[in-house]
């Protein structure tokens, strides 16, 4: 039985429809990430699960309980908020204790749980401080602690790391992942950061305009995006999406780009082979391109293109080549990046079986 499931969820604000007929369910112990750009409805979905927003139509189940109309405190959930939402006049201990306000536990049990959470999150020395005396990372730990003391079946996170700096964010990401492995709760986690999604999730639901675009494991989402939106949203630098026309000759299926370049598509596992001349979009991940100007064997495509510019991001570098009207990005070794001077023509190859193909008209995967 799924741990959390949304069944035929509708949500409207006045005449504006936010979510339409949304279905989603996760198993016990799953780490579900709701991923999408701002305004895609992911936070609305989380708030509906938490009970902070009313459901217009549909049903939300936690285990075998229908929680659609239950009060937030009766749903067996705990939530971590983006701004931490600590109670400013209470000490850290007071904040953790208030997390159990509705639980009707004995005082010893409350103390025991507070001590347990404080130890787990290493905030024991901070217990008698007020939130204003804590740093951002410490506040986030307290906020997580306040959620953990409840021993809830399901933990909710609403963009918990977006107020932290980059270094702390990486630390807290590992921390949350460790907690999930240690305590194994079901987690529903909202973020717009694809790195958080890729590193922590066991399941990702990519959302856009109130519709779940794809639901699957991080690998499925990354390697086999279901449509153009997912393909363009996941991956940094983004996947190269180039329009092409299908051609069939001598048993070979090829895609012809607008600039005369072509790519061999025989190794692609078509769900349905498109018609001759059909408009498609070819998606090529920047990291699958071979080293520029290296010897080419058995590539699906070989492009000779002028360099536009390069960008270095520390451990990585990205080269941008002029391709038709736009640019083609490819990941290069930082040591190689210096070689790619502007204007110079280079030869790059794309391996077979790595391309993603989409219908240009519908955006769906072929």
């Amino acid at each position, binding site marked *: 039985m799924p741990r959390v499931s949304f069944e035929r969820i509708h949500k409207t604000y006045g005449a504006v429809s936010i979510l339409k007929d949304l279905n989603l369910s996760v198993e016990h112990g799953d780490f579900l990430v709701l991923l999408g750009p701002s305004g895609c409805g992911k936070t609305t979905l989380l708030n509906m699960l938490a009970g902070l927003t009313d459901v217009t139509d549909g049903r939300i189940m936690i285990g075998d309980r229908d929680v659609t109309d239950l009060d937030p*405190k009766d749903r067996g959930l705990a939530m971590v908020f983006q701004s931490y939402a600590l109670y400013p006049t209470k000490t850290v201990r007071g904040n953790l204790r208030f997390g159990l306000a509705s639980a009707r536990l004995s005082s010893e049990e409350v103390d025991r749980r507070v001590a347990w959470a404080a130890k787990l999150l290493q905030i024991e020395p901070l217990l008698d401080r007020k939130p204003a005396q804590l740093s951002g990372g410490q506040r986030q730990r307290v906020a997580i602690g306040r959620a953990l003391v409840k021993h809830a079946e399901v933990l909710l996170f609403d963009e918990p790391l977006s107020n932290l700096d980059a270094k702390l964010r990486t630390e807290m990401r590992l921390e949350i992942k460790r907690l999930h492995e240690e305590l194994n709760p079901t987690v529903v986690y909202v973020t717009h950061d694809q790195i958080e999604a890729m590193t922590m999730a066991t399941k990702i639901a990519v959302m856009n305009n109130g519709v779940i675009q794809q639901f699957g494991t991080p690998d499925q989402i990354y390697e086999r995006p279901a449509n153009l939106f997912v393909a363009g949203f996941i991956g940094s630098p983004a996947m190269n999406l180039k329009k092409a026309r299908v051609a069939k000759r001598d048993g070979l299926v090829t895609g012809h780009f607008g600039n005369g370049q072509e790519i061999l598509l025989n190794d692609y596992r078509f769900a349905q082979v498109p018609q001759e001349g059909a408009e498609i979009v070819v998606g090529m991940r920047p990291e699958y391109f071979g080293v520029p100007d290296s010897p080419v064997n058995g590539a699906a495509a070989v492009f000779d293109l002028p360099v536009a510019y390069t960008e270095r991001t520390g451990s990585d570098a990205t080269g941008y080549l002029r391709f038709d009207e736009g640019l083609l990005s490819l990941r290069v070794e930082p040591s190689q990046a210096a070689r790619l001077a502007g204007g110079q023509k280079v030869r790059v190859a794309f391996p077979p079986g790595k391309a993603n193909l989409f219908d240009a008209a519908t955006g769906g995967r072929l």
Partner: protein
Amino acid sequence: MTDIASAATIGATVDSRPVVRRRKKRITGRSIAVIVFLTICALFFCVPLYVVLTTSLKTMDEIRQGNIFALPQVWTLEAWRFAWFEACSGINCDGLRVGFWNSVLILIPSLILSIALSIVTGYALALWDVRWAGTFLFLMFMCAFVPFQIIMYPLIAMTRSIGVYGTIWGVAVVHAVLAMPVLVLIFRNYYKDIPQEIMNAAIMDSGSFWRIFFEIILPMSGNILIVVLILQITSIWNDYLIGVTFGGFNTQPMTVNLANMVTVSTGTASYNVDMAAALLTAIPPLLIYFLVGKFFVAGITAGAIKG
């Protein structure tokens, strides 16, 4: 800022150049105008205060000499004593102390009732999902502009029908009701600044209206409570109309007492006693200002509640 920066530069090259002193600010025409204006404003309040104070310390013989700006030749607190213990208000000659204690007895329940009612209403309207909250707030806002005189007679009828007319409780209830629109707006606007996520967290943690109020919200309300406390103490203490209308014969507040003393005393007017009585009546709000005035400013300027 620039001064500090330039001072730092000068400090760095101290041996080569003499320190250039910042030019002293000249007194300009504009600042003279401002000072004159402020002085006139201060005199406007201080001169009458001076007259009241010195007159209250004089004997009637001295006052009859007609030199109101002169200092007392004989300093005496006799007028103060008389005002407090013996002055007559109507046929009652027990002095102002009767009114003083009535005022205190009116003030305390009025304060508790008005603040308790409006803080909870403001909290509910700002932070809970109340149906028709906007409409309710608008009505409340409109009520704040209804002059008291218009609803005076109906209020008398209503307080009489519930049996509190002419008692201290009647005055307290009317004070609480009349203060509610403004106080609810003040509390509601203050609570609107509390981050929604804190409220969401509290709803998920406890979900209890009263527990969240007493454990989370009330401790965050210190500043605004001080502001409202001062507003209410001043307006209740200085009120005359409600006291004279709803207070019974023996429950009239100090202001009514004072007015009776000054206007309907038989025989010659004792200016020194009148002045002393006026000062006695004004002392409590003044004391409150001195005691919590700095919190008042802090409360008004504290906009956001930091987490």
